[in-house]
C-alpha cells in the first residue's frame, strides 16, 4: 500500500537547482501533511495550497493537493478568499521574501487583523532568485547583484518583529536545513486557530551563498507562548544583516484570538454543517 506521503507526491519534473534547500522544505511539508492526514486531523482533499511567484512557488506542482498558483504578492488575499469560500479547508500559503515582503507587504501587514485561519510559509532566501538574484526587503547590506554592483545599501526589515507588531497570532522561524524541526513547527502552525506565520531560512546556492553561513548560526529556542516581551527579544537577536552571533529558531509567539471563521456566524455555520457555500442549502 502506498504511504500517505507517497500519495502527496506528483510526477511533475522538479526544476529547482540541484541541491536547492527548497527540496528540504518540500520534504518537511510532505511529512507534516502526511502526519496530519494519518492522524485524521484533515483529509487530503480538504487541503488547499496557494503559491505566489518565485522559486518557492514551484512547490505547487510538486504536491498532490488542491491549490491555486496565484500572482506575485497575492498569496494572502487568494488564501483568505479560499478560506472564506469554504472554511472547512486547511489553507496553506507558500510565499517568498520578495513575494510576501515586497510585492505583498500590503497584505502581510493586515494578516493579523483579519486573523484568517490559515498558514503562511515564507521561503526566505533573502534574494529574488528566479529573476536572477536582485535584493529583496530582507537582503543583507553589502549583497552584490546585477542591479547593485556596488552592493545592497538598504537595511533589511525584520519580518518577525513586523509580524509581532501587526498582531499575527502565531509566529515562528524555521531552518530549512532541519527537516524534522521544520515539520514540527509547520504542524503546530497548521493546528493553530488563526493566522500562523512560519519564516523559513533558506540559503540560495546560486545567488545568496552568505546564507549558508547564516544557517549555521541557528539554534533551537524553547517554544514561547504569549510572552510578547520574550518574543520581541528573540526577534531582536538577529537583524537579518549580522553574520555573527546566534539566530533563534522555533515558535516565537502564539496567542489565542477569534479567527476569521469564528468572527462570522455564517462561516461557523458552514464549519458546523461541514459544507462549503457550494453545497449549503438555503
Amino acid at each position, binding site marked *: 500500500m502506498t504511504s500517505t506521503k507517497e500519495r502527496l507526491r506528483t510526477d511533475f519534473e522538479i526544476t529547482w537547482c540541484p541541491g536547492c534547500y527548497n527540496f528540504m522544505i518540500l520534504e518537511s511539508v510532505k511529512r507534516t501533511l502526511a502526519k496530519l492526514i494519518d492522524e485524521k486531523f484533515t483529509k487530503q482533499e480538504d487541503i488547499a495550497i496557494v503559491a505566489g511567484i518565485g522559486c518557492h512557488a514551484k512547490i505547487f506542482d510538486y504536491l498532490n493537493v488542491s491549490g*491555486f498558483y496565484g500572482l506575485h504578492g*497575492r498569496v*494572502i488575499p487568494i*488564501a*483568505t*478568499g479560499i478560506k472564506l469560500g469554504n472554511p472547512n479547508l486547511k489553507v496553506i500559503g507558500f510565499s517568498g521574501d520578495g513575494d510576501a515582503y515586497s510585492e505583498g507587504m500590503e497584505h502581510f501587514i493586515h494578516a493579523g487583523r483579519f486573523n484568517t485561519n490559515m498558514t503562511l510559509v515564507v521561503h526566505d532566501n533573502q534574494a529574488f532568485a528566479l529573476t536572477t538574484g536582485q535584493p529583496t526587503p530582507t537582503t543583507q547590506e553589502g549583497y552584490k547583484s546585477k542591479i547593485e554592483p556596488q552592493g545592497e545599501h538598504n537595511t533589511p526589515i525584520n519580518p518577525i518583529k513586523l509580524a509581532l507588531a501587526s498582531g499575527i497570532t502565531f509566529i515562528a522561524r524555521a531552518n530549512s536545513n532541519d527537516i524534522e524541526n521544520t515539520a514540527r513547527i509547520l504542524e503546530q502552525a497548521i493546528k493553530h486557530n488563526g493566522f500562523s506565520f512560519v519564516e523559513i531560512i533558506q540559503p540560495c546556492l546560486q545567488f545568496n551563498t552568505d546564507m549558508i553561513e547564516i544557517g549555521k548560526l541557528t539554534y533551537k529556542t524553547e517554544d514561547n507562548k504569549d510572552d510578547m516581551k520574550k518574543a520581541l527579544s528573540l526577534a531582536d537577536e538577529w537583524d537579518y544583516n549580522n553574520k555573527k552571533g546566534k539566530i533563534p529558531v522555533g515558535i516565537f509567539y502564539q496567542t489565542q484570538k477569534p479567527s476569521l471563521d469564528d468572527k462570522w456566524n455564517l462561516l461557523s455555520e458552514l464549519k458546523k454543517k461541514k459544507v462549503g457555500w*457550494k453545497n449549503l442549502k438555503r
Partner: protein
Amino acid sequence: MKLNILIGGKAGQGINAVSSIVSAVLSKQGYFTFNYRDYPSLIRGGHNFNVLSVSDEKIGSVESRLDGIIAMDENTIKKHKNELKKNGFMIESEKFENLGRNLNIALAGALIKILGIDKQPLIDEVNRFGEEAIKAAEKGFSSEKEKFKLKKLNKNIVIMTGSQGVAQGAVNSGIDIYFGYPMTPATPVLHELASLQEKNKFIVFLSENEIAAVNSAIGASFSGAKSMTGTSGGGFDLMTEALSLQGQTEIPLVVYLASRPGPSTGVPTYSMQDDLDVALRAGHGEFPRIVIAPGDAIECIEKTNESFYLSQKFNALSMILSDKHLAEGEFASDRKPNKTLKVEIKRKVPGEAIVKTNSYEHDEKGNTTEEAEIIKQKAEKRLKKYEEIKKECRRFQMIKIYGNKNAKNLIIGWGSTKTTILDAIDSIDSGIKTGKGNYKFLQVLYLKPLSDEIRKEIEKTEKAKGKVILIENNLTGQLGRLIREKTGISIKNRILKYDGRPFFVDELKEEIQKIK
C-alpha cells in the same frame, strides 16, 4: 403632466430626506418620479441639490428648467433662481423655525400640499419618525396652498436606485460573498449589499484594498462561493492584474465597475461614461469576457443576474458597467424584472476532489506548462469559449429598440443615458409612447459581445437616408468607436457631454433637433 422640483442646501441638512419622503408619497399615489442627486465630495457644508421630476407617465430624466425650488439656504436661491420658470414656486426653509432635524419633514409637507395631495399619505409616510415629525409635517402642510391637483392614480410603482438594482440582482443570483473597498460611486452597492447580508445569508467583506478584494473574490470562487467585487476608476486599475488572472485560471468572477469623470481621482461624485474602453480591454493577454451595461434600476437587477449566470456557465469574467447617474439616480418603475435565472456552480471544488488552478499557462490538470502545443491549444480554447459565450448571449436582450420600429432616424446609446434619451424623444414627437414618431432608440446593453443587430439597424437607416445619432456621456464616443471597430461604420452625428453632469432632457431634445 411633468414637474421638476429642485431641493437644495448644504450637505448634512437632509435634502435627500425631503426628496425621498416626497417620492415615496408620490409613488404610492401612482406617480412616477426620477430623482437626480448633485453633490460635491464633502460631508458637511457646500452646496448639494436634488432635482425631483414628477409625472403621471414614465419618467427617467430631469430638466434644466424648474417648476419649483425648495431652498434650505440662501445659496440655493442665488444659484438656481434663474432656472425657475415664470410661474414657478419657491419654498424657503427660513419660515420654519426651531424644527431642528424635522425641518426637512416640514419642507416635504409643504411640497405635498403644493402638489395637491391629501395630508394622510404624508402622515402615513412620516409616522415611523415619531410624533415630533408628524407635527412638523402638519406644520409644513398647512403653510402652503395647493398649486396643482395630483389625483390618486391606480399604478403599482417601485422606487429603486441602480445600486439597489445591482445588489438585488446579486442576491437573486445567490451571491455568497461580496469583496469591497469603498470608492464613489461604487460604494452604494457595497452598502446596499451589507444591509441585505444578514437576511439573505451572505457575507460582505471589506478588504484592505482593491487588489486584495479582487484576488480574494477569485480565491473564494475557486473554493465554491459565488463571489463578486466592485469599484470605480482607480480601484479598477488596481484590480487589472487579477482580471488577467481570471482569464488564465478561468475561475468565475463578477466585477461591478461604476465609472467617474476624468482620469485619475477625477471627479468622484459626478457622472460620466468614460470607462467603457477600459472595461473592454483591461488586463494583459487575450481572453474572453462579458461586459454588460444596464440602463435603469430594473435592468440592473436583470443584467446583474445574467452576469452571474454567464460567469458561472462559462467560468468567465463578467462585468457590469455603471456610473454615478445610474448608481445613485432614483428610478420609479411599474415593470417587474424578468424571471431570475438560476445560477449554479457545476465545477468540482476543493474538498470534493483535488482541484488545481494556475496563473501560469497550465494543462487540463492545472499543472504549469511551457509546451508549445499546449500553449496553442489553451489559447484556442479561450477563443472558442468566447464563441460559445456569444451564442449563449443571444438568449438575452443584448440590445433593445424603443419607439417606432420603422422610424426614419436612429439614436444609439448605452447605460445611464437611456431614460433621458427616451424622455427626449417623447418630448419631440411622443415617438416612444405612440410608436409612431420619427426617432427610434437602440439601447446597447451588451458591449461585449456586441450584437450583430446594431450593424443591420444602422445600415437600414442609412439606406433610407435617415439620421444615425450617437449619444454618449463622454468625450470621445467610446461606443461609437467600438461600433466602428466591429462594423467598419463610423457614426458622424454625435452628441457628447463630458462636464460630469448627465444630459438634461430639454438640452438633449435641442441637441437632437439641431442635427439636420
